[in-house]
């Protein structure tokens, strides 16, 4: 790995960023590629909740984006081009619903840079459930009308976290196709660049509804896929682990060997399309890890089997919980895997999840964990 300093920052190519959003601010953890020692900056936005973070290094940028929520003054997206030393302070609320919608922004739940071929496009998912697009790398935003005006909207119901659009998956090969997930509405896909959206939940249960298999209304918690095989999706549901091999047209149960199929986060491995990580929880009524053992589960065969990863994680009296965006995987080899708990502990593995170490133990409650390797995208 060549050593090259990124302009205006002390980071070099190959460094790993772990971006941690909490209920009381954001923290930026940085390490070199060995991922043995970490330095931490923060809190950024002290006192404000950060449910979404992203790092965009397309088109020569090194831009952090943060969805920041003040309990008093509302939500906004702020950006930093110097790894968090300074942040934009937008005068106006950039993510805003049109007056005709009758909706008001509550929270920014997800920020996703667009495809490499569209280096200025950034997407964000918000509460109340809507998708916004930026064409200037996150400065100004416009709602995606096809979803904002969707005929199902009046029947979407908020989950415990509110009616949030929390997941955005892009098709790297087809610029007109992308998927989103909403709690509680389910998984939707567009094949025409966002003009129209169809619910894609066939096979996904809604255990909390009289009709267990509705067209929409499922409480999808998170969806992931590997760019090399984008049609193969993995979905953590409010009860249920699923895989689709046809971009969501149909789903199959893959809860084979997990102690519970309830949970929130699910993340793909960067180099192995059939390797996925999940962190099951006991149940919807008792949202802690099963048997109070903190275990990350990994499948290496697309869900045919799952095995626990426990080395370095507490295996007794660990009443921990991890939220839907609390798990992230970097692109090094072996991959770094990171997760943060609601009790403020941040765990890291630099060995594909084989061994773990706590790199922070007293953060505020962790809402999201994102990671990126600094360098050519």
């Amino acid at each position, binding site marked *: 790995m060549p050593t090259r300093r990124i302009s205006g920052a002390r980071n070099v190519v190959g460094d790993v960023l772990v971006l941690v959003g909490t*209920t009381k601010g954001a923290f930026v953890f940085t390490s070199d590629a060995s991922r043995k020692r970490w330095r931490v900056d923060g809190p950024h936005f002290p006192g404000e909740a950060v449910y979404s973070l992203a790092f965009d290094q397309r088109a020569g940028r090194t831009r952090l984006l943060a969805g920041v929520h003040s309990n*008093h*003054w509302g939500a906004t997206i702020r950006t930093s081009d110097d790894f968090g030393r300074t942040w934009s302070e937008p*005068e*106006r*609320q950039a993510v805003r619903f049109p*007056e005709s919608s009758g909706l008001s922004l509550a929270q920014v739940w997800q920020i996703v840079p667009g495809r490499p071929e569209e280096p200025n496009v950034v997407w964000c998912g918000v509460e109340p459930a809507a998708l916004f697009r930026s064409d200037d790398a996150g400065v100004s935003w416009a709602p995606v009308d096809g979803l904002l005006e969707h005929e199902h909207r009046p029947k979407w119901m908020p989950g415990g976290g509110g009616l949030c659009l929390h997941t955005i998956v892009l098709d790297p090969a087809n610029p007109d196709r992308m998927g989103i997930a909403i709690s509680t509405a389910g998984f939707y896909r567009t094949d025409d660049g966002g003009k129209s959206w169809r619910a894609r939940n066939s096979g996904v249960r809604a255990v909390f509804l009289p009709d267990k298999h509705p067209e929409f209304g499922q409480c999808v918690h998170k969806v992931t896929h590997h760019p090399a095989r984008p049609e193969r999706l993995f979905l953590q549901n409010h009860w249920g682990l699923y895989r689709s091999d046809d971009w969501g047209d149909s789903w199959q149960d893959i809860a084979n060997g997990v102690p519970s199929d309830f949970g929130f986060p699910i993340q793909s491995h960067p180099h192995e399309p059939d390797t996925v990580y999940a962190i099951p929880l006991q149940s919807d009524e008792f949202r802690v890890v099963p048997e109070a053992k903190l275990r990350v589960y990994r499948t290496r065969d697309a869900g045919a089997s799952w095995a626990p990863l426990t080395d370095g994680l507490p295996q007794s009296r660990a009443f921990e919980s991890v939220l839907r965006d609390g798990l992230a995987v970097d692109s090094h080899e072996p991959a770094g895997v990171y997760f943060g708990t609601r009790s403020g502990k941040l765990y890291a593995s630099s060995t594909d999840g084989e061994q773990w170490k706590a790199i922070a133990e007293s953060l505020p409650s962790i809402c999201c964990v994102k990671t990126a390797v600094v360098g050519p995208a």
Partner: protein
Amino acid sequence: MGISVVLPRALVPYARGVGTLQIDAPCPTVRDALAATAARWPAVIDRVLTEQGALRRHVNVFVGDESIAFLDGLDTRVDEGATITIVPAVSGG
């Protein structure tokens, strides 16, 4: 004579460092006063009202010593010379 709008510390930077704003336009109600404020200091009012014009949930507004929550909300009458004070609610976690 107009009216005065007193900002909390967090919003002063959005009014270019001014903590008490003077509004000279006629403002029969709090809604009118906030609209007049928005015309000159839109960043302040973005943080007080939602994009639908509703008062944010954890923001309190007083006319004199009275909270508009116990009067007529944004339709509360504002007399010439009144002071409107914007205060973050005592909330958090």
